[in-house]
């Protein structure tokens, strides 16, 4: 495996990105759509942000890229330290230097994310020309090399194709080629496989993982698919209604989930082989920004909710010393086994 010095195993020191206390509100809304979110990603690692639609995971990602429309969105507080600079405090010009070069993003909708009037070769070359001092010919060569790396068949021909001539999976490969063309330190992928067929999904995830291993790029993957998380993540952050309710290493969170919402999510994943009647669901609905409860936002759907939950938002905390050090949960009742004597197990 090349470039091992930045690979997954190495550099336990400084995180690549530290997001601290991010709060975002949309104009006229009653509550913050993202509320005090803190996350960090180490170089070369994969962080998965999981949660239902509308939990604020995409908004968080877009804010890191400076892609949130402001207004209506407003960043109330927070810092996102990346290579010594706060991404949230950069001018448009400074942001333009970093975007597409140090940090790249791929989106959920490959069908509409490429410009229909330019060839894919031009669109990949454009991002290289923007950030590198090279000629058009070299940029085109780089585009070809990237198409090859993302395993687009007959890349020489595809270079001059327009997006509409490619399938959804191929377009997402082109997006990935574009995002990685400048060897970014961080790749943010916002549900990159949601819009694709299941068989294509696995291929794209495989591709992302392979390329990540090759280049040592850190990855923030946003998904609602726990299967994807289990497969690809080093660390995971579970978001609910704009807050991180549980985070930690993927093994620790999957083996020993502490938040009732995480537990609910996990038991609603169908498993092959055993069928145990109907699929478990988390009862109730995600509150909208205008019906956001005080205190713990999961309380109205939580079987364990008490008076204390409704009074005050529980902070993220380590449950006990026996757990993995990074594993933190925002629930006053955690660990549930101790509080309710095995109900959750």
């Amino acid at each position, binding site marked *: 495996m090349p470039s091992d010095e930045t690979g997954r195993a190495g550099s336990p020191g400084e995180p690549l990105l530290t997001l601290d206390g991010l709060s975002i509100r949309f104009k006229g809304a009653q509550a913050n759509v993202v509320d005090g979110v803190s996350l960090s990603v180490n170089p070369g690692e994969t962080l998965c942000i999981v949660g239902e639609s509308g939990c604020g995971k995409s908004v968080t990602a877009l804010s890191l*890229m*400076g*892609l949130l429309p402001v207004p209506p969105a407003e960043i109330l507080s927070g810092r996102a330290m990346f290579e010594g600079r706060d991404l949230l405090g950069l001018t*448009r*010009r400074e*942001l*333009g*230097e*970093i*975007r*597409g*070069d140090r940090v*790249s*993003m791929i*989106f959920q*909708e490959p069908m*509409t*994310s*490429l*410009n*229909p*009037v330019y*060839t894919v070769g031009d669109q990949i070359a*454009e*991002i290289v020309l*923007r*950030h590198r001092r090279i000629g058009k010919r070299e940029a085109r060569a780089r585009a070809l090399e990237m198409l090859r790396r993302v395993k687009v068949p007959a890349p020489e021909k595809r270079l001059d194709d*327009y997006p*509409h*001539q490619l399938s959804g999976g191929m377009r997402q490969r082109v*997006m990935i080629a*574009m995002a990685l063309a400048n060897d970014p330190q961080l790749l943010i992928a916002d549900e990159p496989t949601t819009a694709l067929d299941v068989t294509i999904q696995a291929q794209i995830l495989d591709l992302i993982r392979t390329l990540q291993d090759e280049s040592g790029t850190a990855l923030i993957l946003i998904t609602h698919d726990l299967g994807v998380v289990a497969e690809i993540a080093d660390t995971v952050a579970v978001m609910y209604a704009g807050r991180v309710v549980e985070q930690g290493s993927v093994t620790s969170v999957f083996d020993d989930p502490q938040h009732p919402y995480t537990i609910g999510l996990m038991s609603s994943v169908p498993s092959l082989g055993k069928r145990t009647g109907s699929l478990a669901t988390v009862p109730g609905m995600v509150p909208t920004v205008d019906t956001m409860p005080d205190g713990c936002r999961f309380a109205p759907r939580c079987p364990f909710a008490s008076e204390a939950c409704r009074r005050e938002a529980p902070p993220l905390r380590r449950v006990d010393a026996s757990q993995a050090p990074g594993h933190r949960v925002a629930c006053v009742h955690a660990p549930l086994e101790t509080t309710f004597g095995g109900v959750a197990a």
Partner: protein
Amino acid sequence: MLAFIARRLLIALPTLVLVSIFVFTLQKLLPGDPALVLAGEERDPETLAFIREKYHLNEPILYQYFYWVGGLLQGDLGVSLRTNQPVLSLIADKLPVTIQLAVMAMIIAMAIGIPTGILSAVKKGGPVDYIANFLALSGLSIPNFWLGIMLILLVSVNLGWLPASGYESIFVDPVRSLETMIMPAFVLGTALAATLMRHTRSAMLGVLKADYVRTARAKGLSERVVVIKHAFRNALLPVVTLGALLFGELLAGAVLTEQIFTIPGFGKLIVDAVFTRDYAVVQGVVLCTAAGFILMNLIADVLYVLLNPRMRNAQ
């Protein structure tokens, strides 16, 4: 591409036939007898009979139509009932005037309308947007003849900068030609600029929300490149179609504006022809205008295909 153009031309043929029938019939339905007009003061039956005979006015209407179309196919648009000049040469005289006016008006319209449309979409809801919309609304509501008269009063009468009227061929005296045409072109152009601006704005507003514009920003491109290269290039598609159609309308002549500035273009030709019941001229001009309009439509379609890669394979 050639096959596409050929197919479009083929489709245009029945349209032209329909237009010719329509023009011819409408003309016949209008009250008034051209023979009476031609005969002038002395309306003795012999002269009238002679005129009717000469211009086939006594023949059945269907025969008259085929007689006319037969001439058309040989490039004969008939002879002006009033001046005895061939209609074709009348049209050939006026067409360069109208084309020059249309081109100048279109350049002014695009130069004003498109940048303002882009700007007001980018700055949506801000002061620039409000001012641009106010100007567009003014451009649409102010009648051309009023603006024309005001311009003449201000620029020609009071300031004495430009001639109030008249016409000079651009091939004879280009400077003088531009001087006489700039005001009427401005009057026509500002009205069209308003339409172009509104359409550019709404096309841009749609396109600026597109995912690929977000992608362009994510690539780190400057806002100017994002707006012009990625957004406007897509918004251009509907605007080009509209622009070509507006240009087609300009070719039909601007009756009022030409009258005010006494420009000898299509508009003046057709007004004079209608007033004197010179139906050979009316038919010729209308048919010519329709053909011009169809041609502009074709050009719009061709441009649309050229600008839009998705259409290139589809056709």
